[in-house]
C-alpha cells in the first residue's frame, strides 16, 4: 500500500503552497488523489492531460495539479472543455465541477455535453451545498436540509445526477464516494479512458458548510454516514423501498460505447476532404456543382 502519497506528491505543483485551501475533512482532497492515481494508472503523460474546472471549491483542484489546467467561469467548464477537445482531440480532457456549478448554472451545458457525447471525463464533486460562497442550497441539497438560504429546511427536490446524465445520453455514468477510494479510482480511470462523454458523480462531504448545519458533529460523522449510505448498485436494486431510504447506490449505471463527437466529426471531415472540389472559394448555392452545369450550358449558349 505504500508509495501512494509519494506518487501523488509527484503530480502536485511544487511551486504551489500546501496544504491546499480545502477545509479539514473536505473530501475534495481525496477525490484529487483518486484523479491522480487514475491518470498515473493509465500511464498518461502530464502534457496530454487537461484539467478544466469550474468555480467553487471543486474549481480550486485544478490549480494544484501539474497538468495543463484551466480554471474557467461558474458553470461553464464543460464549454471550455468542449472547445479544447474539438480543437485538440489527442488531449485527455478532464472536467471537474461542483454540484451547484454543474447542475444549477451549468445544467444546460451538462445535458448538452452529454447529448453531444463529446470526449470528456466529467467529474461532479457533489457535496450538496455551495461551499465557497457560504453554504447556500444547491440543486442536490436533500429535502429538509438546513442551509444558509434554506434556514427552515430545503423545499425543493434534489436532482439525481445519474438519472439526468443517463437521460441526456452520456456514454458512461457512474457514482462513487470519497469514502470508497479504490472504487473511485476505478470509476475515474474508466471515465478518462473510455470514448465519449463519461460522467462520475463523486459524493464528498462538506462539514464546514453542510454538516455543521445538519447535525453532523465533525467530519468523521459525515464519513460514517457516507459509509453507511453507499451500497453497490447491484445490491441496491434488490432492496425494498424501505431499505432504499437513506441509501445511495454507487457503481456504474450506464455503459454505452458510442464514438465521441470529435471522432464523428473527424470521420465526416475525412469524407469531405476526400471529395474533389473541397476547396471552393465560396459554397455554390443549393449544393450545385459548377462542373456539371458547364457541360449543360455549352449546349444552350447561342
Amino acid at each position: 500500500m505504500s508509495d501512494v502519497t509519494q506518487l501523488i506528491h509527484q503530480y502536485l505543483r511544487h511551486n504551489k503552497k500546501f496544504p491546499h485551501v480545502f477545509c479539514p475533512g473536505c473530501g475534495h482532497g481525496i477525490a484529487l488523489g483518486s484523479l491522480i492515481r487514475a491518470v498515473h494508472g493509465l500511464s498518461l503523460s502530464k502534457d496530454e492531460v487537461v484539467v478544466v474546472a469550474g468555480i467553487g471549491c471543486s474549481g480550486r483542484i485544478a490549480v494544484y495539479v501539474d497538468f495543463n489546467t484551466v480554471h474557467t467561469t461558474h458553470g461553464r467548464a464543460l464549454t471550455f472543455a468542449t472547445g479544447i477537445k474539438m480543437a485538440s482531440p489527442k488531449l485527455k480532457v478532464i472536467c471537474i465541477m461542483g454540484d451547484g456549478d454543474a447542475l444549477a448554472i451549468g445544467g444546460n451545458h451538462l445535458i448538452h455535453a452529454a447529448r453531444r457525447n463529446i470526449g470528456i471525463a466529467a467529474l461532479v464533486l457533489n457535496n450538496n451545498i455551495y461551499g465557497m460562497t457560504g453554504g447556500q442550497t444547491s440543486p442536490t441539497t436533500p429535502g429538509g436540509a438546513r442551509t444558509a438560504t434554506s434556514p427552515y429546511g430545503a423545499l425543493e427536490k434534489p436532482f439525481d445526477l445519474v438519472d439526468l446524465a443517463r437521460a441526456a445520453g452520456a456514454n458512461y455514468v457512474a457514482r462513487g464516494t470519497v469514502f470508497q477510494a479504490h472504487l473511485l479510482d476505478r470509476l475515474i480511470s474508466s471515465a478518462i479512458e473510455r470514448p465519449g462523454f463519461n460522467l462520475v458523480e463523486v459524493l464528498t462531504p462538506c462539514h464546514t458548510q453542510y454538516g455543521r448545519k445538519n447535525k453532523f458533529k465533525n467530519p468523521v460523522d459525515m464519513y460514517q454516514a457516507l459509509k453507511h449510505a453507499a451500497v453497490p448498485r447491484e445490491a441496491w436494486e434488490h432492496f425494498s423501498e424501505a431499505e432504499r431510504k437513506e441509501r445511495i447506490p454507487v457503481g456504474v449505471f450506464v455503459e454505452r460505447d458510442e464514438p465521441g463527437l470529435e471522432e464523428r466529426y473527424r470521420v465526416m471531415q475525412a469524407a469531405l476532404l476526400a471529395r474533389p472540389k473541397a476547396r471552393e472559394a465560396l459554397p455554390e448555392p443549393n449544393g450545385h456543382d459548377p462542373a456539371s452545369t458547364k457541360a449543360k450550358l455549352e449546349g444552350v449558349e447561342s
Partner: protein
Amino acid sequence: MKRFTALERFEIRLSGLGGQGVITLGKVLGGALALGHGFHVTQTQSYGPEARGGASRTDLVVSTVPISYPKAESVDLLVALSQEACNTYYRNMKPRGILVIESDLVRQPPSNFYLGLPFTRLARDKIGVPQAMNSVVLGALTWLLPFARQAVMKKALAASLPAKVLDKNLKAFSLGYSQAKKHFGPPPALWDGNGDETEEPGD
C-alpha cells in the same frame, strides 16, 4: 452588342410575395451585373419573419462608380409581382422610372404607364414549372435593361441552379426574353437618356 460607358446609381427594386423567388432573382441579377458585366452592384433585402406568402423585397443599386449608399432611394425600375408590393413601393419610384408588373396578380396598376406580363402563367403553361417564374422575369428584365447582356445573364442563371432544374429555367429565361421583346418594345425608347448608351452591331 450593347455597352455602357457610364451609369450612375441605377436603382432596381424587386418585390412580391415570399416563395416567388424574389430574393433569388435579386441574387442572380445582381451577381450577373457585378461579376459578368463588371458593374458596381449592391443587393440588399428586407429581412423579416416572412414565411411563404408574406411580403418580400430586394433592392439593387447598379453603377459604374463605387456605390456609397447601398439601399434604393428613388427607384428607376420597380418590379412588382403582387398587388400589395405594387401599392407599397410605387411611391418610391423616380418620376420617369419604369414599373413592371405581374399582370395576373397586379389587377389594379397605380398608373397607366407600366409594362406587364403574366409571368406565373407563362411559367406554368409554357414551361410546366410554376417555380420557374422568376427565371421568366429575369429573361424579361434582361431584354428591358439596356445594359444587360443575354449570354452573361444566362450563364449567371445557370451557375446558380442545381443541375436537375437547369433546362427548364433556361427555357423560362428565353421565354421571358422573347415575350418582353414582343410586348415591351425596344429598350432605348423606354429609357430616354438614362445613361450613355452606344449600340454596336452584332447583338
